[in-house]
């Protein structure tokens, strides 16, 4: 809030506050990875691996925080406000819900959606002995399975996962740098998340042949509880300001052959005053001009 509870005294403080206020085009969402009071080794490893995938747009909290996201959301909202994070992943473990991950997002520092997932099988980055791709690569996301369209909870989960792993929105991308793909399959009530390194092999034509190599974290997830936002709150959060809509370029048209036509609107012209080319030969000579003048002038008699 640049409103004056405390006016920022340095430029750096002002920039810090400006970064956090609502903008037309928003910053990349940052995720906070939190351990619960009873987090076990597996859940901690999951958090560390996701942190490695999502660097630098993630913060990993080192200490354990004794909260229960589904009961009380104030603690999460406080963290979100302090670190300006709108995505979170909370890991915990107890007998009733073993290896529990709560993935969620915020709107205006209040919890929007939360989905609880159980980790059934986990293969970590260090367990897979293949080469990895560089940190900060924008991943390709693929969702397979009709459950992701049919079931409302799965649809929200799909939206949450896209939001989580998307990374920054870029205008251009280097085609040779598409190295990382995250593949989610929904089958039999389970969600399989696999990460592969993409190898582009030569094929006869322009499009390369793809070979995949298993890399990185792979998780077998099962959906447990959900806390989804009501429809109108969700619609409110989806609302984009009008200024972001691309402006339509008027008076430009294309025809089938690829020619671009433009349309110019002119004001009314006085054709008598048009500047045309000067033809020196047609210019009236002084003798002719005098003759014309005397002929044309009215019968003026010079009275003395």
């Amino acid at each position, binding site marked *: 809030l640049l409103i004056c509870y405390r006016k920022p005294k340095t430029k750096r403080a002002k920039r810090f506050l400006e970064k956090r206020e609502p903008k037309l085009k928003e910053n990349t969402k940052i995720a906070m990875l939190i351990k619960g009071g009873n987090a076990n080794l597996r859940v901690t490893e999951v958090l560390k691996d996701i942190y490695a995938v999502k660097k630098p747009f993630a913060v990993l909290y080192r200490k354990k925080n004794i909260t229960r996201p589904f009961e009380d959301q104030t603690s999460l909202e406080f963290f979100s406000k302090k670190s300006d994070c709108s995505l979170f992943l909370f890991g915990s473990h107890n007998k009733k819900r073993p290896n529990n991950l709560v993935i969620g997002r915020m709107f205006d520092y209040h919890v929007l959606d939360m989905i609880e997932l159980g980790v059934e099988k986990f293969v970590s980055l260090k367990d897979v002995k293949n080469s990895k791709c560089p940190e900060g690569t924008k991943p*390709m996301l693929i969702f*397979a399975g009709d459950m992701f369209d049919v079931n409302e909870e799965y649809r929200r989960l799909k939206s949450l996962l896209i939001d989580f792993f998307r990374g920054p*929105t870029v205008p251009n991308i280097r085609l040779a740098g598409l190295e990382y793909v995250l593949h989610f399959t929904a089958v039999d009530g389970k969600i*399989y998340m*696999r990460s592969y390194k993409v190898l582009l092999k030569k094929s*006869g034509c*322009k499009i390369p042949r793809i070979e995949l190599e298993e890399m990185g974290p792979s998780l077998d997830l099962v959906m447990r509880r959900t806390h989804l936002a009501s429809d109108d709150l969700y619609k409110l959060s989806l609302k984009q300001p009008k200024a972001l809509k691309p402006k339509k370029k008027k008076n430009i048209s294309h025809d089938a052959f690829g020619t671009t036509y433009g349309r110019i609107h002119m004001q009314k012209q006085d054709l008598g005053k048009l500047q045309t080319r000067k033809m020196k030969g047609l210019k009236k000579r002084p003798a002719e001009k005098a003759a014309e003048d005397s002929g044309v002038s009215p019968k003026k008699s010079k009275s003395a």
Partner: protein
Amino acid sequence: MVAVRVEEVLAAAEEQEAEKRRSVVVEKELELEFDLGNLLALDRNPPPAAQLRGVGPQREAQLLALARDNTQLLVAQLWELPAERAGGAGGPLVARLPEPTFRLPREKPPPRPKPPTRWEQFARLKGIRRRKRTSLVWDEQAKEWRRRWGYRRAGGDPARAWLAEVPAGADPEEDQFARLRREKRERVARNELNRLRNLARAHRAGAAVPAVPLHPTGHQSKEELSHVARVARVSTASLGRFQPRLPKEPAEPPSRSGGRKRRFEPLLGNLAAERSRQLELLKDMGSKKPVLDITRAVNKQLRQEEAEAAAAKGKKQSQRGKRGRRQ
């Protein structure tokens, strides 16, 4: 002979092309949906559940095959995008991505347009536009370009100004340095006040003003308190029907519309009541006795005036007493 050979050659060439393309073509029942701005592909085909039910490496192989097919399709789409060589001829091939189409919720609500400040309104009215100022100014004395304000500014350090001219109509005894300092302080204060006023105006325009203003405790009027108490009473799940009243609180009759609208009797209700009401009305209209009892009205007025006089006298006495005590 030549024709046959030509046909053979063409067929062979087609065979080769198809062979090449086979390695990158993937067959799917339903087409995938692509959002290239997000590098996203959505596969609606139901996955082969029977195969994926197997445990261990078999499942992994199946998942890998599925992922490979989907990734191939996505990469094919990405390679279709308009690409150019960034950084000259030898640079990497860079594709221009379209805007992402998948709708994702925002992080924070979109910023509300701020109302214009007093200066901005005035400038718009007069047609004054912002002039871009140069960051450096030519300093005649130092004979170099100096910054407009800040460290080593163009006019010299204002703290070291050793001369302050006495203006034409001023008092010769007045301390000019003090006057300059005081005026600067006043200017700063006025600027800060205007900034706060602009912010308050913007804040007021943005935030919703509550319908009934709630003052802090101790500053509330009787009406405000009673209104708030009434609202609190009705804010239960059963809309205040079973709320016990305080010992001295008067029993309020239930009015659904909160005492706002006029309630009319239904048209064809109690015929006997209507009849008696009409007869009463006719009787009052026909009787010689006036409805207004003059004596009672006059007595009431006199009593009211006496009460007011007594109240005023009491106040005056207390005031006089206070004055006396102060002395």
